[in-house]
């Protein structure tokens, strides 16, 4: 096949890249005033923002990694009934919307929150004891809670990859536990520790909803882009953040290509969990794992169950109050619910269709082009979403089209980030369709389209369903594009949560968060039942 034909086949990918990224980013760059950009680079306030963003990302990464290592070791090393369930329960924290954890922290650590009420009673101070809410520490804590499951899952793969024969050999020849760790474990774990660190750092660097909800006066570059979105300087900050996050994305991709190749172990390392309780260090490890589960699940459970526990009001009553709620500018909650669900359904369908088209075309073009598509589709995963949102606002909101205030703008924004995720789920599943099935189809007279319809699509259908569900839940949870594109007439559920907190209607905010979180958990659980590829995103 000629290069021109292979490039033509990639039309769906080029269209996606051009419409969802190149046009918005060209508008963003076109909107940058050179003097503004130079002054942004030398502005003390921006420097402080950058260092603050960097510091919280580094702190989040280090603490997450340290807390995750023992849990990952436990999950990799010991076998017991219900282990898969336990792993999935831990992952729940990673799948729920970011604002759920932020609200959990508000309920737990607020001045009149659960922890401060308990401590002030216990110490009879009458004053809040823990004062980390609305500071960098609350942001770091939320990130640690959010990313420990991600890091644990990656490190668990690392521990599982350790070849037990090598461990035994090192024990026989050296005997020293430290040397065994250095010569065997560290060698196997390094790529996984690198991968976990880079991802947690990148995700923390582009954090948005967390500093907005629990950062107080501490803010980040992503939030600053939103705060200044209608000022000329916003584009300059966005360009700076875009360049920084692109650099991080490129480092991640280079790392993945060069170092992150999951090993396969020659002998399972798992031992029965009963052995854990035969030594004091084992009991300590079990207690630590139990503590991490409590630490992880409490901030998720609190917003979900607190509306049920509220005294004097039934949950249906609370929901009715929420359903009838009217925001100050006339939009009612049921309209928000309808808009949010409609947008999620559209994003889900559009993203999945686009992803299937992109993956199919990249597989057909093959060779180096397939590799380039795969790399370019990985770039947006850790790219600045606020910069992209601003670019979309400038291009389609007020530029080539005037869609500000339209659900289409919201769909474009959310699809831009969901398509690369959905494409990865579908691509992973497609790659697992044995090459011989494709060759058997070709050898026995199938055209590319006949093969797609009769062989490939039925085989990847579970991943297609999983990506539909993932796209639906991502759209429902999305905070960045929702806040950027919401207007007085168009709003999604996460923005409604934010507004209810602003209105000091914490009970209604919690009721809505509870509903939304349960919905997301159900959708994500269903998705993971359809296809394990959802977890492969990590």
């Amino acid at each position, binding site marked *: 096949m000629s290069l021109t034909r292979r490039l033509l086949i990639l039309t769906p990918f080029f269209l996606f890249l051009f419409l969802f990224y190149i046009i918005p980013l060209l508008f963003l760059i076109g909107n940058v005033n050179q003097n503004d950009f130079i002054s942004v680079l030398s502005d003390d306030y921006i420097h402080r923002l950058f260092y603050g963003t960097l510091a919280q990302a580094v702190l989040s990464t280090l603490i997450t990694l340290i807390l995750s290592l023992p849990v990952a070791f436990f999950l990799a090393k010991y076998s017991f009934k219900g282990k898969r369930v336990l792993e999935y329960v831990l992952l729940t924290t990673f799948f729920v919307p970011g604002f759920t954890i932020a609200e959990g922290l508000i309920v737990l650590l607020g001045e009149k929150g659960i922890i401060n009420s308990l401590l002030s009673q216990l110490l009879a101070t009458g004053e809040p004891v823990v004062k980390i809410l609305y500071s960098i520490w609350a942001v770091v804590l939320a990130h640690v809670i959010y990313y420990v499951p991600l890091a644990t899952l990656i490190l668990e793969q690392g521990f599982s990859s350790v070849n037990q024969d090598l461990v035994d050999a090192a024990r026989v020849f050296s005997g020293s536990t430290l040397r065994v760790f250095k010569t065997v474990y560290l060698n196997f774990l390094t790529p996984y520790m690198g991968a976990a660190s880079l991802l947690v750092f990148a995700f923390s660097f582009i954090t948005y909803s967390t500093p907005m909800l629990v950062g107080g006066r501490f803010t980040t570059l992503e939030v600053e882009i939103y705060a200044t979105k209608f000022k000329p300087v916003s584009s300059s900050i966005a360009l700076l953040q875009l360049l920084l996050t692109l650099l991080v994305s490129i480092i991640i991709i280079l790392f993945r290509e060069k170092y992150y190749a999951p090993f396969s172990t020659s002998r399972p390392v798992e031992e029965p969990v009963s052995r854990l309780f035969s030594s004091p260090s084992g009991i300590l490890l079990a207690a630590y794992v139990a503590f991490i589960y409590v630490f992880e699940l409490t901030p998720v459970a609190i917003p979900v169950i607190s509306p049920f526990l509220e005294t004097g009001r039934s949950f249906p009553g609370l929901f009715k109050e929420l359903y009838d709620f009217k925001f100050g500018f006339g939009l009612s909650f049921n309209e928000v619910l309808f808009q949010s669900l409609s947008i999620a359904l559209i994003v889900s369908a559009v993203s999945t269709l686009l992803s299937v088209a992109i993956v199919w075309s990249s597989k057909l073009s093959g060779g180096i082009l397939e590799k380039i598509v795969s790399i370019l589709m990985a770039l947006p995963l850790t790219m600045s979403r606020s910069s992209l949102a601003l670019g979309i606002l400038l291009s389609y909101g007020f530029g080539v089209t005037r869609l500000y205030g339209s659900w289409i703008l919201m769909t474009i924004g959310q699809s831009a980030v969901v398509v690369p995720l959905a494409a990865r789920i579908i691509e992973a599943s497609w790659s697992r369709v044995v090459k011989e099935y494709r060759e058997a189809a070709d050898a*026995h007279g199938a055209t590319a389209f006949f093969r797609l319809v009769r062989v490939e699509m039925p085989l990847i259908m579970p991943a297609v369903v999983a990506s539909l569900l993932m796209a639906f839940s991502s759209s429902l949870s999305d905070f960045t594009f929702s806040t950027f594109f919401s207007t007085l007439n168009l709003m999604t559920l996460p923005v409604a949560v934010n507004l209810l907190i602003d209105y000091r209607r914490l009970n209604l905010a919690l009721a809505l968060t509870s509903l939304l979180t349960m919905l997301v958990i159900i959708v994500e659980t269903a998705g993971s039942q359809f296809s394990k590829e959802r977890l492969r995103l990590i």
Partner: protein
Amino acid sequence: MKLEVQDLRKKFGGFEALRGVSFSIPSGKTLALLGPSGCGKTTTLRVIAGLLKPDSGRILFDGEDVTELPPRQRNIGMVFQSPALFPNFTVRENIAFPLEARGKKPEEISRRVKEVTEMVELSGLEERRPHELSRGQQQRVAIGRAIASEVKLLLLDEPLTALDAGLRAEISSTIRMIQRKLGITTIYVTHDQLEAFAMGDFIATMFDGTIDAYADAQTMYAKPPTEKTARFLGFVNRLETSAEHLDPETIRLVFPGGEFKMKWHGSKTAGKVAVLFRPEDASISLEGEGLLDGELSSSMFAGRNTVTRVKTSQGMIECAGNDSSQYQAISGMAGRKVTVKIDLNKALLIETGKT
């Protein structure tokens, strides 16, 4: 259909997988392509199928150049090492796949599926899915799918590799029966000599991306055309000696233990020759009756026979001509002087140079 393959070349990066592969197969015959792993057999097959494009060279079906045609226009059937059955299809749907892909009418598809299912002895299993079948049944479905559409060429890529010994015999006899019945020109790729001789009318040996030797199966077994192929086919022992012509068709070979006369159609002048022979055509004698003196190095019980290694002035010789009842007498005699008896009528002579 007559297949001609002309000077196929294929590189993967810096690795030259095919280095000028050429051969032809008469219509309706089977060629067994035999060689060690990584020699380019499967690459050759995939190029012929159209799954890989060669860097250069031509493939002709009855004289028509098909090199540039996509697989679907070549009208071939292929059986892979793993059955590669579509897991979401039933047996019937798998067998019908090539017919549907070629746009055949439903009634023609049902008739042909019924015929093929009977031929591969799968009647009654049509509605089962691949995971509900045994490995042997799965491979039968793969064979059925390969012949469902009336194909010009059947390509089999090590189809028995993953099967146990009993199933191998069963499936290979099915393949042979179908091939003979339908008279389809066939290429059978294998690394197993026994399979190659059982399946092929012709055998081609392949090493390092080139065809080393090509002959009919009997000739290839008895008198392999090249030393490399001979060694691959089990002629692992090599002696160098001098030969002298007694008349145009007879030569005399001189060994330390005596002389040997045999038929010879090679060079008419006397010269050095290499004598290659299989271990089963050599045995040891404790009574000094052999052609070559040596020292017993080791002995091993191998079920049907006893395998010994004898250190001689010409290197180590492996003998498997002593039956297993002699093992007790031979074992524990390492270091003892023995002589090696060789059935030179079954040996291969290669001219190595003049004296």
